[in-house]
């Protein structure tokens, strides 16, 4: 086990845990944002640089600070490590810069984007960005390519997080898409307009943090904050598919089906294309109840809750810290005072 101090809060985590996952064990507003890291995908992370943090003490053995900011999603903790995230001005300034960089070539077409309301980049820009841009040059655009009847690719919105590539590599048998080109001319594409067609291809929609890959069968049907997410399951015959999904209702109609995600927007279990695209009747499913909505999502409008600090990972919190946390949200102590 390794004990680390993250933004002044001590937490003990198993060896080999990344700084980001250690922060997630604390929970709440201290968790660094992540645009490319995705826990179920091996090798993901380190690309978007949104989760950079300052390591002000490397470990108990070697307490020297790390010279540069490090990507918390791929840096493992060391016993005695001291990490600064929201309390470090340099980190916050760099994060502003990362938002600015990501928004250079990501169009602000949220009003017509299906991802609006559940877009990681919207949340990231809202929490860490600034209201203006200093970029005056021409934005990059792409020739539209058709990658099949189920998935819509909007390359202009892509932030090249590589999640969809890892997904296709790791959960399907034949990846036909990848990153073509180099630098800011890189694009997600298929080899000579191949159609992405396999039983699990729909999962690339769920992992995309922005609106670059969206569900063609749901296009322009409804704004997500007018829909009602309900957890459901079915006995899927596909061996790799758990059959546990979230159905998005408008009235009595199931408008779309997605895999279930945790509070960090990460899919817990991959689902097959049959569950996702072909089963859109309530009769196909066993309903479990309303899905929990992430606090950052506009879907949760009027249901805002303060994020909760898990008391089980914070032993012997000093009273002064408790008072401070109570006085200064966004942290709330779960189960202690509420």
């Amino acid at each position: 086990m390794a004990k680390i101090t993250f933004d002044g809060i001590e937490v003990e985590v198993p060896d080999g845990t990344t700084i980001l996952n250690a922060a997630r064990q604390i929970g709440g507003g201290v968790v660094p944002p992540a645009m490319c890291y995705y826990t179920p995908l091996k090798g993901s992370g380190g690309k978007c640089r949104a989760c950079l943090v300052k390591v002000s003490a490397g470990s108990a053995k070697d307490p020297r600070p790390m010279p540069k900011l490090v990507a918390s999603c791929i840096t493992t903790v060391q016993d005695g490590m001291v990490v600064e995230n929201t309390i470090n001005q340099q980190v916050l300034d760099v994060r502003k810069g990362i938002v600015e960089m990501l928004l250079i070539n990501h169009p602000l077409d949220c009003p017509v984007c299906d991802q609006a309301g559940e877009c990681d980049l919207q949340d990231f820009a809202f929490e860490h960005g600034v209201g203006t841009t200093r970029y005056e040059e021409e934005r990059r655009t792409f020739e539209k390519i058709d990658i099949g009847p189920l998935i819509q690719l909007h390359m202009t919105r892509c932030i090249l997080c590589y999640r969809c590539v890892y997904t296709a590599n790791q959960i399907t048998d034949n990846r036909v898409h990848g990153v073509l080109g180099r630098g800011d001319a890189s694009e997600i594409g298929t080899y000579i307009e191949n159609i992405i067609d396999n039983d699990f291809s729909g999962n690339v929609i769920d992992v995309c943090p922005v609106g670059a890959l969206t569900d063609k069968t749901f296009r322009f049907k409804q704004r997500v904050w007018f829909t009602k997410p309900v957890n459901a399951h079915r006995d899927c015959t596909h061996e790799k598919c758990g059959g546990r999904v979230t159905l998005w209702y408008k009235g009595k109609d199931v408008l779309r089906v997605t895999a279930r995600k945790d509070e960090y927007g990460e899919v817990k279990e991959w689902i097959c294309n049959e569950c996702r695209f072909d089963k859109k009747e309530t009769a196909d499913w066993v309903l479990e109840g309303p899905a929990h909505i992430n606090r950052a999502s506009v879907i949760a409008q009027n249901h805002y809750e303060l994020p909760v600090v898990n008391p089980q990972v914070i032993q012997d919190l000093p009273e002064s810290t408790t008072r401070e946390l109570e006085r200064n949200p966004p942290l709330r102590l779960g189960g202690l005072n509420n």
Partner: protein
Amino acid sequence: MGRKLLTEHINVEGINTFEVYRKHGGYRSVEKALKTMTPDEVVEEVKKSGLRGRGGAGFPTGMKWSFLAKPEGVPRYLVCNADESEPGTFKDRQLMSKLPHLLIEGMITGSYALGARTSYIYIRGELLYVLRILEKAIAEAYAAGFLGENILGSGYSLDLHVHPGAGAYICGEETALLESLEGKRGNPRNKPPFPAVQGLYARPTVVNNVETIAAVVPIINEGGDEYAKLGVGKSTGTKLISACGHLNKPGIYEIELGVPVEEFIYSDEYCGGIWKGRDLKAVVAGGSSVPILPKELILKTAAGENRLMTYESLSDGGFVTGTMLGSGGFIAMDETTCIVKNTWNFSRFYHHESCGQCSPCREGTGWLEKVLHRLEHGHGSMHDIDLLVSVAKQIEGNTICPLGEAAAWPVAAAVRHFRHEFEWHVTNPKEATAPGAAYRGAAVLA
């Protein structure tokens, strides 16, 4: 005239053939190492020499070798980084095409020291003619028994392969090189794990520059202590400098580290001064990625001491008044040079070569290039000059690999030392954008 350890026989007729190279003392280090030394003794000798990476980073080679993990029954690799593609740097190309056997000899000795049974030379894709030369030389070495099974009856076997890249500057970054060598897209890996623990095919790997590996040959032949006697302080031995730009005698020089920069530029033994009797304006001392320095700061440090061609002296003053020895790509610019245009040119290169994997570099390099393009073409504003510094700062230190810094440092340094030129492009766009225009006025603007 300083000692030539690498290039002593470079102009000998037929030196690129095994026979002639052997006649001039070639492959002695292999014989000495395999017959009289243990691998650890070879590493120790390299440590003693104080040899530092000649590709640009300047990391002590012996220390790098000693970091190599050596788990039982797991193959290890030595990979030669011959993907030389930084603007202004052209020493390895010459070394490989003229003295291919020197590199092969260094590879054999180095591989023996590291316990590698298969080694690779990853060569820049555009250097096809050098690839042919190397392949021919490797075939000769195999035929002579210096490569293959049981070299010189020592029981040590080594296979050496040359692998051409596809022409991407980023593949000169060691982890991107390894990805490319594995047949993948040349994207740098996140570190840790470092190649010494998980490199090629996730096995312990050492990646060294061509000149670094070639330098192992004289170190083993003459001993690490002898090598360390050359140079100054922690900058030991000799270094190849590829000098280009507005010089009377551009070319590749093997210098003993410690030569004063002024002597290197102006003495007839080296570059012979600035061409056409013009005045020196600025120098990029270690390849296009290191900070540019004006004449005053390249000849003398901020403290007024003579600047020497050493790692320490050139970096004296940090990035405020110093630069780096880098890869030894020495670019001299005379008074007719437009610094803004030159910086834009460098920026174009880095924009084109960014792999696009991480956001600050992917978006930032393009942004820098576009703003510089605007300034150079007379459409910039004063705000743009500060913007350049700000964007460079946003890239620097926040990327996966050093290409971000390589793109940011030249821009930041150019603005720091030649801000008046940038301002001139804003205040006098017509004059500044005329063909061949360069700022020659007083460096003071209200």
